[in-house]
């Protein structure tokens, strides 16, 4: 049931060539992306009254929201509001923490991921994740990128090389590493390492990409490159990005969710959230009255 949507990766050279409009907007100084937000896509991720508890402490409570296909959704909110908890519940990475409890349903690609019968390995190959601090394995660039495909059983040298090149190109890293794929991943700079992690996640051909504050450990130039990358990927992947940085959320996302103290306060198009928020709490946050 959970099948990955077969797609040919575009010969993307990393430049947001397909999103001319937004680039111009950015250049003209406006921080808002004027993308069409009225896409009627199917929902890829759907939370229904979803709650997550660390022991007795509440992580998130009663979240109901739908994330649509091929959109970039940002989750913003002050520290400790449950953004990361929610994100990590989508691919069940939270399972590593002992003593946790779940209520409600979390549907990904149509299936409740907390159902006993779900195949975790499949789920995680469909839903890629990029972490806050770049964490490439202490192996070569090639081995890092090929890690996922190897798990899927692809072992032939030629196939792996093709997938590695595609993923590295998609992550806008190919030109910088193509001369020496055997180089250790730890020898790359921070920004390169994060792009490698993105390439690694893309190599398993997921249809969802979860990003947990991917730029918080990077310098502004690297951050810019990652944001460009997100732009380039937006038409092919469903991206959910948790970010502390409101301006970043405004720059990259089409829809934004505002969390506060474990609850979903408001979820709407980015334009609306930032220009004309419905709730007072939202307005207070985006205008900086509290953080």
């Amino acid at each position: 049931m959970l099948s990955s949507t077969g797609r040919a990766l575009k010969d993307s050279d990393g430049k947001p060539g397909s999103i001319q409009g937004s680039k111009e907007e950015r250049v003209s100084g406006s921080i808002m992306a004027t993308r069409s937000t009225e896409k009627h896509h199917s929902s890829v991720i759907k939370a229904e009254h979803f709650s997550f508890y660390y022991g007795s402490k509440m992580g998130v409570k009663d979240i109901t929201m739908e994330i649509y296909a091929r959109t970039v959704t940002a989750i913003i909110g002050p520290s400790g509001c449950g953004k990361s908890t929610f994100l990590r519940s989508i691919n069940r990475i939270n399972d590593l923490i002992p003593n946790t409890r779940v209520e409600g349903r979390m549907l990904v690609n149509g299936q409740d991921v907390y159902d006993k019968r779900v195949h975790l390995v499949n789920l995680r190959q469909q839903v890629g994740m990029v972490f806050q601090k770049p964490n490439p394995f202490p192996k070569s660039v090639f081995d890092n990128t090929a890690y996922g495909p190897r798990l899927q059983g692809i072992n032939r040298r030629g196939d792996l090389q093709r997938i590695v090149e595609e993923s590295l190109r998609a992550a806008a890293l190919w030109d910088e590493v193509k001369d020496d794929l055997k180089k250790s991943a730890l020898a790359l700079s921070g920004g390169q390492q994060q792009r490698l992690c993105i390439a690694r996640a893309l190599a398993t051909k997921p249809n969802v990409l979860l990003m947990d504050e991917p730029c918080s450990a990077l310098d502004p130039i690297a951050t810019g490159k990652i944001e460009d990358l997100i732009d380039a990927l937006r038409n092919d992947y469903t991206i959910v990005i948790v970010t502390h940085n409101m301006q970043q959320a405004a720059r990259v996302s089409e829809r934004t969710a505002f969390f506060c103290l474990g609850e979903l306060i408001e979820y709407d198009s980015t334009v609306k959230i930032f220009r004309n928020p419905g709730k007072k709490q939202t307005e207070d946050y985006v205008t900086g009255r509290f953080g």
Partner: protein
Amino acid sequence: MKVIRRTILDKAFTAITALPVVLLVAALLVILTPMLWRGAGAVLFEGTVEWRKMQLAEFGHGDEAGIRAEADQAQAARAAVYEMIDKFKSGVDAEQLTDRAKEIYRGFGKELQRKDVPREQYTMLRSLSREIRDKLETAFSSSDIGQMRELTNDVLQYETDDRFKGTIAREFFPLARKYQEAAATVNLNKRSEYARDLAELEQIIRDIFGPRPMEESPALAQFRYGATRWDQAQDLLFRLLWKEEWVEKQPGQPLVKIAASRKEQFAETELKGMFDLVENNLGRMLNPKWTFYWRYFTDDSTPGHYFGGIGPEILGTLILTILSMAFVVPLGLISAAYLTERTHEGPVIRIIRMCINTLAGVPSIVFGLFGMAFFVLFFLPLFGAPSKPCILAGSLTLAVLTLPVMIRSSEEAIRTVPQTYKEASLALGASKFRTFVTVTLPVALPGILTGVILSLSRVAGETAPILFTAGIAVGPVPKSLLQTTRTLSYGSWDMAVADKLAALVPHNQYGMVVTLVLLILCLNALAIVIRSRVLKRLKGH
């Protein structure tokens, strides 16, 4: 606090922290240097011709022609010494001379019978020879030189007698004459004293030069050769020249040990020349040469480690160590993996941890007994093997001994692997097992190798666990895992406590211990090199 005071305190603190290190290094030097020095003596020493002879005969090493030539040369140099001794002996050893006289008498009797001499003549000759024999006997044991001379002259009257021509009885006369000559130079009163000292001297000479060319080869290897090492020869030379005596230096005081010159003891005799002869020519008689006995590490040894090397011991230690590592590393890793993967610290886990910690503190002798009771008597027979000590049981025991260390250090190492690697791997769809093997283990490898190093050092030097399970002091080189083996640790203990001959070969004792220490150092160094390589590769160089 004033800055000056703070600076002084800082400096004092640095000094105090450096002190233990300095003390440790000093202690190491104090312990290791003499040990290494003496141990080096097992491999680097001045070996005599006797040593080379021994190597050729017992182990088959060396150039046969060259050694034979050397031995002949040395023998030629020694001939003078033997001559002097023999001469002296013939004047002193009354018993021997008497026995010889009796022998001649008996031989003569047999000859007469064979010749089928007429009865009258036979009886007469017999009684005559008996008379001669008795006279000689009295002469040999008399301390009155006048009487002796008279008796021997009586005997010598018959020298020209035709009846004794061509028979063994002729030998009576040179016997008598030699005795006359020799006795002239000997103080007959001191003869018994001389006899005793001579026996001692002869023993020392035999220790230095080995058995005489005509003597039959003794059964035990250690007696077949003379002093094999120059330092040994020097010690024997000292014993030759000086005799230890207890004398009363001051009346009423306890006896004091002094060294009395043997030369002076024998000053009135012909033998006094021998001492100088030996002292000045010992080099030619033994032909010492600096030898680098590298085969020390590969040769077997004669019983008691008197000659030879410690090859089998080294082999035994290596086999036991490597085999026990082969058992303990996977077992320790798997246990550590289980312990670290469990996120919920329930009562079961706590009990397991308590057991591991307890095991770490059990004395090694208890492990030895356990090994014997469990592995040798119970486990081995389950697989049809005879329930006897063997290398397999020994290495299993050693593996159990070092398991807690291995588990603990592996666990530490695995815990230091950043959680985010695990998360990244799982997020890509890897199973927990796959994550462990392809991500966690390689990152934890340096720490695990540290555990391996610690275990290795412990296992290589352990004696108590193999006392009952694998070790023996004397035995053949093992051909299968179901046999016992000698080891360096067991051998060191044995040489220090049980082996009676060990005191004669201190260089072997030291050699064994030093080899053990060096072996462990080398194994450690190897493991450290491997560890640093792995670490470098992990860091991305």
